[in-house]
């Protein structure tokens, strides 16, 4: 079966520093993937490169999504084709409410007008499930949100936009146990047989309630090892030493 996402030999640099060095990754429908790795290995770079963030320059390789070459596609086109990325530190956009923002984005992604009442009902339902305060969706996007509120807002956006592939970049960092549980629940609500999730993380707490298919170890710009869900636990206990030596 055609894979949903294929990353083929991608190298990329930021400010003339090479971060990714020929990285390969494949993700199929219905799968949950984890990427772990030491700081500075290139985990966040990978997420940004898939979305074609102009700050990052790809020097070689190709990226395919749903059978289409998206290597040089514009960011919004990639989003419309069904990839969602949650940010480690989401931008604060003053003067634009979460509700209006998401309704606009939803219209863009679905390519049609969004019914106000249906949309509002679903958004409020999802916000409630994520234990977000009721006034949250009327506040300016991420402005003055706490770290936890920002992360929940990212998950809310994922649930609303319903991508085919969600890339969650350190969504669990800096959260307390309750918040991690809520975020994890959000991911479960989202996940089905037709979509896929790629979680970039340091810790395994968020993974406890999720069924993980693959764990990739990213060291120095490359995936050096791929295993099943049990690998995450080993990493948490022993760190990356074993894999770094291997490089």
């Amino acid at each position, binding site marked *: 079966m055609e894979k949903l996402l294929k990353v083929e030999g991608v190298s990329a640099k930021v400010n003339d520093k090479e971060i990714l060095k020929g990285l390969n990754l494949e993700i199929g429908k219905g799968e949950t993937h984890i990427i772990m790795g030491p700081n500075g290995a290139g985990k966040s770079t990978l997420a940004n490169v898939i979305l074609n963030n102009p700050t990052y320059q790809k020097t070689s390789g190709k990226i395919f999504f749903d059978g289409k070459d998206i290597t040089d596609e514009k960011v*919004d086109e990639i*989003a419309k084709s069904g990839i969602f990325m949650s940010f480690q530190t*989401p931008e604060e956009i003053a*003067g*634009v409410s979460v509700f*209006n923002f998401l309704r606009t984005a939803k219209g863009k992604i679905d390519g049609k007008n969004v019914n106000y009442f249906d949309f509002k009902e679903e958004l409020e339902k999802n916000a409630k499930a994520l234990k977000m305060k009721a006034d949250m969706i009327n506040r300016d996007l991420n402005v003055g949100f706490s770290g936890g509120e920002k992360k929940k807002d990212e998950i809310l956006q994922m649930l609303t936009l319903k991508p085919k592939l969600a890339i969650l970049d350190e969504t669990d960092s800096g959260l307390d146990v309750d918040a991690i549980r809520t975020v994890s629940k959000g991911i479960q609500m989202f996940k089905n047989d037709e979509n896929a999730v790629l979680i970039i993380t340091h810790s395994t707490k968020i993974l406890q309630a999720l069924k993980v298919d693959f764990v990739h170890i990213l060291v120095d710009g490359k995936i050096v090892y791929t295993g099943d869900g049990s690998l995450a636990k080993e990493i948490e206990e022993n760190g990356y030493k074993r894999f770094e030596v291997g490089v």
Partner: protein
Amino acid sequence: MPKTKVEDVNQNFYDFKNADNFEFKMDKGLSEEIVREISSKKNEPDWVIEIRLKALEIYQKLELPVWGPDLSELNMDEISTYVKPKTEMKEKWEDVPEEIKDTFDKLGIPKAEHEYLAGVGAQYDSEVVYHSIKEELLKQGVIYTDIDSAIRDYPEIFREYFTKCVPLSEHKFIALHYAVFSGGSFVYVPKGVKLEMPLQSYFRLNSPESGQFEHTLIIVDEGASLQFIEGCSAPKYNKVNLHAGCVELFVKEGGYLRYSTIENWSKNMLNLNTKKAIVEKDAQVDWVSGSFGSKISMLYPMSVLKGENAKTEYTGISFAGKGQNLDTGFKVAHLAPNTSSVINSRSISKNGGIATYRSLVSILPNATGSKCSVTCDGLMLDDISRSDTIPVNNVETCDVEFSHEAKVGKISDEAIFYLMTRGLSEEDAKAMIVRGFANPISKEFPIEYAVEMNRLINLELEGSIG
């Protein structure tokens, strides 16, 4: 990242011309004869003619300002100072001549009156063609009429206040204003009367190579409250038009006045307007100002906080596009103890436009315990435009809290990327951020006007951000 275009304010909506039909159009230029003729057309009492002639004398003596935008293209010999439309003032829209009524219909004024205004005045060129106010307000003693009627019907109160807030010699263009003023509104809100719905005056300049010099005089008596909205627009002509209006506001002890302006003059207009409020003890004046149109604007509303605990807030936005030089800001004088002011200004410049924030905050020795906070933000949308911040802060007493913060810069690339990952195109992302930037100001307007403003920032956003 490729450069994107944020659209200029779409002026086409306002750019419909009627034929230059008038009952009378004054010869171009400025002279004693012309001033006397305007006065005699209006059958004014002698004391008004005297003010006009004295103002003319001052105008001729004063120099053009040496600072700010270049006004050298203004030639008074090319401007007709008085254009009388073919109608008297009416109190019913049905009685206003079809062509003029049609203009205000297109601008949505009668509909707005019907839906959410307590009263409306409409000026076409130099004269007010329509004025009306809700019956129940009349019964409470509220006066809302045009200036000619005020001089005739309320001579004592009018004379007591006229020129007392903005004196003839304040600057060259105010002297010009007093020499040839015509049209505008007079409002008196009696003690304790609080208007729930706003009054609105709309100014339309249709005649080419002419000037509009309306005078607005508002008195909010003790404990009374009023919201006043003014709107301005004009079709675009090739030659310069001039707007030199004057607004005098008096807010008595414990009174409240909110004065909102949406200005969208055409881009051949020189807008040299003067607005000032005298704020007494425990009273408050709030200014909300949106400047979109005109070729050159020099507009600095002022609050004089004369009584103890007087307050003022200024919220302003200007959007300078191609060929525009918008020099705007605010002035406040703290004269009494425990007065406070809050100033919040934003500007957007693009496509070669120049946006300047110019201000004066003056806290004088008597104003102990006063507070003032200023924030101003300039957003540059390209590298051929300009954004300048020129604030003067004068503090003459130690017992104050004063702070001023300003920023200038562009939209961050990170914010654009974030929005694009949610499916917005780069244009949409920028437009959304610009609207968000303007939002703290647009939300100060009544909802109908916020919608109007969003249309003004016609950013071709297909969604329904608002």
